[in-house]
């Protein structure tokens, strides 16, 4: 049986439908992520799980018990807040001991447990510090330690890494993964950062406008987006609209205006005449004066512009028909100079017939 069941949960704010009939089932020990742009309803859903907000319709069930009339303080669910919400007038030790004190834990038990919790997040010796004396990463660890000390059934994390710089973020991601494995507690993680979601999660629910657009593991989400929104939201993606020209077996041909005929294999097909979109990751497109032999789709064009980002360069190529295609090229291939092509250079772009993914409208 699943640990957390979200059954047809709906939440309205006036005319605005923040969460629209969402059903999810999250298992014990899972690292589950709610991913979506701001305003997609992920935070509202999290607040309803925590108990700060109540659904207008539907039900939230934890471990077989309905949470409808259970106030936040009585739920066996703890939250790591985006701002961490560390109590500024309490020391690190007092912050971490807070849930134990609320649970009327005997004083003699508290000190060793706090010490152990601090060791777990490598903050030993920081007991007497105040939150304002800690760095961003340390605060984050205190918030996690505080939420985990009384061993909740479920830990909710509301964009806990949003305030950290890129380097620290990466390190904290690794720490979170390790920690979750060690404690074995179910994590429900909210973020708008798709890279973070892909890196951390066992499963991701991509949300948009209050609904779950796709629920899958990270590789499936990335490689086989179910629709335009997911394809566009996760990573960079060329979205080429067209009409199905022909279909045979698992192969099909798509007519894309401004580009031409594109061969696609391995995608759920559409019958001839149906409209749809080809989702094509820029890193799966090749660029050059000569192209590898396995490129089933080839087009001539000119480099329109490029974006140099250090490890890779993103080229925007305008093909002869006028359609623009984004191509990502790792700079490891370039040698000393920073780029292969200049704007205006004549090039070929191409990709394998199984590189793209067809999304019927």
């Amino acid at each position, binding site marked *: 049986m699943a640990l957390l069941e979200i059954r047809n949960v709906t939440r309205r704010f006036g005319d605005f439908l923040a969460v629209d009939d969402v059903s999810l089932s999250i298992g014990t020990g899972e690292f589950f992520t709610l991913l979506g742009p701001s305003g997609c309803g992920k935070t509202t859903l999290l607040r309803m799980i925590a*108990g700060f907000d109540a659904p207008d319709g539907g039900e939230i069930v934890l471990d077989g018990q309905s949470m409808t009339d259970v106030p936040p*303080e009585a739920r066996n669910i703890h*939250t790591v807040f985006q*701002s961490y*919400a560390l*109590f500024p*007038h309490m020391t690190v030790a007092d912050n971490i001991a807070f849930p134990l004190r*609320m649970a009327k834990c005997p004083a003699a038990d508290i000190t060793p447990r706090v010490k152990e919790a601090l060791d777990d997040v490598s903050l030993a010796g920081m007991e007497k510090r105040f939150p*304002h004396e800690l760095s961003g990463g340390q605060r984050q660890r205190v918030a996690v330690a505080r939420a985990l000390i*009384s061993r909740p059934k479920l830990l909710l994390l509301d964009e806990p890494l949003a305030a950290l710089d890129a380097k620290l973020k990466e390190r904290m991601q690794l720490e979170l993964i390790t920690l979750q494995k060690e404690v074995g507690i179910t994590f429900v993680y909210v973020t708008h950062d798709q890279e973070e979601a892909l890196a951390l999660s066992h499963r991701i629910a991509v949300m948009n406008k209050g609904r779950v657009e796709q629920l899958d593991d990270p590789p499936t989400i990335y490689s086989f987006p179910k629709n335009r929104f997911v394809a566009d939201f996760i990573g960079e993606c060329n979205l080429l609209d067209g009409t199905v020209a022909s279909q045979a077996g698992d192969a099909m041909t798509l007519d894309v205006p401004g580009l031409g005929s594109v061969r696609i294999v391995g995608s759920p097909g559409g019958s001839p005449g149906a409209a749809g979109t080809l989702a094509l990751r820029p890193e799966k497109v090749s660029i050059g004066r000569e192209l590898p032999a396995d490129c089933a789709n080839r087009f001539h064009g000119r480099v329109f512009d490029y974006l140099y980002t250090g490890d890779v360069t993103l080229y925007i190529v305008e093909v002869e028909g006028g359609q623009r295609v984004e191509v990502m090229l790792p700079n490891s291939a370039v040698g000393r100079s920073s780029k292969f092509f200049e704007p205006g250079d004549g090039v070929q772009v191409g990709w394998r017939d199984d590189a793209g993914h067809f999304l019927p409208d």
Partner: protein
Amino acid sequence: MSTRVQKWILSGPPLLYLLVFFAVPVGIMVVASFRYAGEFGGLAPLFGTGDPDEVAGLTVESYQRFFDDRIYLELFAKSFVYAVLTTVACLACAYPLSLMIARSPKKSRDLLVLLVILPFWSNFLIRVYAWMIILGPQSLFTRAFNGLTGAFGLEPMPLLFSPIAVLIGLVYVHLPFMVLPLYANLEKHDPALLDAAQDLGANAWQRFWRITFPLSLPGVYAGAALVFIPALGIFAIPDLLGGTDSMLIGNLVKQQFLDARDWPFGSVLSIVLTAAAILFAGLAAWFGRPKRA
């Protein structure tokens, strides 16, 4: 123009004015507290008082008088008790109000605060006068009050010209001084802290006493100082609302300057009063100092 010159042009005039009309008068008063009283009031002429202990016309006679006579220390203690009671009562009234305003929707907060300050902008004496009407012997309130206490078999008692009236007046006049700093503090609290406390198992009562109240202490201390200092030196409220037994230290100061015309002793009283007020404000500032850098 050099910065030095600009600095003096700007700060010179206000500096000069406040030196002449604030620092010098206070200085003179300090000197006056060490002088003899004149035969017909005011201060004695500088020399030739005929006192063998006299040193350059100065004496600690008035200070001795204050500290030797129990009456004055008792009066001081009484004023202190009134000021403390006023502060506590103001806190009790101001806390729920400030908390309610701080937790109201952002757009209505300004209006709610304005509604607290508005009565404060009407003249101080009008506000005291309002209570003279309410507590007056024939007023509806007094009759209702005595009717009620009468039902419990108590003797009817006059409300006006009583310590109760003085306290009500003191609280009424000083309440906004407590509300404003308290609200300013409570308004800044991060609501996520209460969410976090609740999330970690704290009920409403625990959330208040473990999070809201300790975090509001700087506001409480600031409000306490703003109420306590003026309440300690007030004389008009006991004058108008109090009876003969409601004289406070402020009334004694007033008496020394206007009726008894014993300026040295009046100066001693004012200085002791101010020292006590500043000591209290200093303590409040110390306790309320921001602990988070």
